[in-house]
């Protein structure tokens, strides 16, 4: 599982200038227009569901508004199949519920993928000092669960600590078999060089440590994501501007995507997420950092609530050494495009043919 060094799939300089309309086939929301007959059938089904929802709302209106909203949420459609009106309705519903629940004004953004944008990420492993500020910033930005029990702690970024290791003289004669000449040297099976057996729970007095290097990982936002292929209900999908997202209200918690991910990027909400009111980030995106519920899968989405409005993801912003670069792969002048054009880059586990849009590089 040694990372393979690969040239970038397409030199950013050679890329076409951004066209005003994004490639239709790349945007999953565009495929909706084709399934007209199904839509008619669906809307029929939704009509009856809507009446059910209405009844439910009436029934609960006198008592618990939260329950009524959750009841309505139960019957909403897959996000991609919602009409703009339904999206607005769902958004308003969520904003009402979250605002009441967390005691502050919570916004749920529904901004779509912007034309001419293909998000990309590059990380300088030479620079990373293993401080894990990115991990912390990510949890705070993206409203992850942070309870005391192991199942209540969710982090999307892992910084793997890799031992530098060393080749030792005294181990030279310790290999096997003995007698007829050593075939496996005594320095085999000792860490040196990067292998994916890093530790991500390390507590040193100071970073960087002398005997370690660091390899941060998170969702690679693959161009050919295996997690999307195995989802039986199409709740996880690739957005037009690149990130792989999850409709948390549609996920059935079957965990096939978690088994399919070669980067261990996905987490299950093992229980009702623990998110203290005062720590909740009220600026959210529907497909991004809005609070999740029990039993659904979540993962990094490159801070859609920020990046769809021209800001950097939280991890990029917080990195004290500037190891993290983010930008538009279609813009030859963006930081990430410049990295791809000028540095030696590689993709993690390139042999899996997932074509990540998350690149590693070094000076």
């Amino acid at each position, binding site marked *: 599982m040694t990372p393979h060094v690969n040239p970038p799939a397409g030199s950013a300089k050679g890329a076409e200038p951004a066209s005003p309309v994004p490639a239709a086939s790349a945007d999953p929301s565009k495929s909706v227009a084709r399934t007209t007959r199904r839509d008619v059938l*669906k809307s029929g089904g939704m009509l009856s569901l809507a009446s059910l929802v209405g009844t439910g709302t009436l029934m609960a209106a006198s008592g618990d508004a939260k329950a009524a909203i959750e009841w309505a949420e139960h019957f909403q459609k*897959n996000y991609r*199949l919602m009409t703009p009106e339904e999206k607005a309705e769902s958004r308003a519903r969520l904003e009402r519920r979250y605002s009441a629940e967390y005691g502050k004004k919570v916004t749920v953004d529904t901004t779509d993928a912007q034309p001419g944008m293909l998000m990309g990420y590059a990380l300088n492993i030479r620079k990373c000092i293993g401080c894990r500020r990115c991990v912390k910033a990510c949890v705070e930005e993206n409203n992850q669960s942070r309870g005391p029990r*192991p*199942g209540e702690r969710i982090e999307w970024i892992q910084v793997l600590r890799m031992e530098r290791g060393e080749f030792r003289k005294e181990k030279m004669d310790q290999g096997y078999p003995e007698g007829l000449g050593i075939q496996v040297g005594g320095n085999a099976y000792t860490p040196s060089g990067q292998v994916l057996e890093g530790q991500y729970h390390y507590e040193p007095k100071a970073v960087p440590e002398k005997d370690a290097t660091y390899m941060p990982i998170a969702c690679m936002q693959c161009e050919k994501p*295996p997690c999307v*292929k195995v989802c039986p209900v199409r709740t996880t999908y690739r957005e037009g501007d690149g990130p792989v997202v999850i409709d948390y209200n*549609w996920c059935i918690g079957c965990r096939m995507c978690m088994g399919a991910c070669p980067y261990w990027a996905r987490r299950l909400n093992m229980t009702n997420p623990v998110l203290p009111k005062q720590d909740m980030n009220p600026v959210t995106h529907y497909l991004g950092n809005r609070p999740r519920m029990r*039993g659904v899968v979540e993962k990094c989405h490159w801070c859609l609530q920020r990046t769809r409005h021209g800001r950097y993801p939280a991890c990029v912003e917080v990195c004290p050494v500037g190891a993290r670069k983010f930008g538009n792969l279609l813009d030859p002048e963006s930081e990430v495009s410049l990295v791809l054009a000028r540095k030696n880059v590689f993709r993690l586990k390139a042999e899996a043919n997932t074509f990540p849009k998350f690149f590693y590089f070094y000076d």
Partner: protein
Amino acid sequence: MLTRFLTDYTRYVLKGGTKYYAWMGILGLLMVAMVYVFWLQNTDGLIVTGMTSQIHDGLYFANLVFLVGVAAGAVTIVFPAYVYHHEGMHKVTVLGEMLAVSAVIMVIMFVLAHMGRPDRLWHLIPVIGIYNFPGPMLGWDVLVLNIYLILNLICGFYYLYTKYAGVEVNRKFFMPLVYISIVWALSIHTVTAFLIATLPARPMWFHSVMPIRFITTAFAAGPAMIILVFLIIRKNTKFWVDDSAIRLLATIVTWCLGIAIFLTLSEVVIELYARTEHANGLYYLMFGLHGLTALVPWFWSSVVLMVGAFVLFLIPSFRNDMSRLPIACVMAFVGIWIEKGMGLIVPGFVPSPIGEVTEYVPTFVEILLTVGIWAFGFFILTILLKGAIGILTGEIRFGASPAVAAK
């Protein structure tokens, strides 16, 4: 006529001796426990289980995979009966179909137990939800399992109905369904193997011997259980299962078990000879990794049970002795159950794709829910078998007064 069939059938299965009521009562109690822990799991979440984000498929998924095999195993009765016209098997075909029906229902129960949000199951239903097809293997699995359930329900109950009514089987309608269900039995376990073998992120599963290994273990575990059921039926009811049927099943178990052991050995040699990082899962299973050895006793007990059962099946005086045969059957069944669960599903997650070695220990809640679902399955199986036997022995017959069962 149909309503008479249903009322006679229901009346028959409701009546029974003390032994019958005690058995059903115990199963019923376990089912109550099952409902309680299922409710617990769906209010507190999967945190009440031993599963984690590292090892996120556990006991439920393992039982699901195993029971798909048991369901597919019913074909070891149907195939000899209809393709080789085996007399003894032909008499009991319908019992195999009833076993398949109960096994598939248990599979569905384990799917519900496994899901993080079973309340959203409707998202899978076409038209009102999204049925993602043909991309995900899970979609294929849902499809083949449901059709297999329907095929067996139709074949089994149509046959029983004709027996009840005393009319001839319409072969133009019945035989095509039987042949389809034979092929379909293979498909359900093949697709279930594909379900996990198509994940390159989990190197322990990512190899092409998986489907045939699934089939051979299924055709060992399934008939092993059927033999046990047949022997119980012989002892407790008026229905007599021929020795020839049991002997043929024992032969099938023997050789499928033999091939399964051979395939496991091949895997061990190939993986451990090169011993790449992709072999770490198997190494963890066999010897432990980084000092964690929770699965090692499971693996070796499974090896002992499977090889031991194989040797016992090879001894003629043993396999032909109906009082000793159950020992080997139980050994094979338990051995394969361990091999599918602790020996296949869990080590697939160890180490994780980033090399993390963690352990999985099922909680009491998880074990209770699993036992509860098995009880539920046996409850259904008992009802289905009792009804079927009542019809086969002629105790339920159109126009006959309902008889009291012996069981």
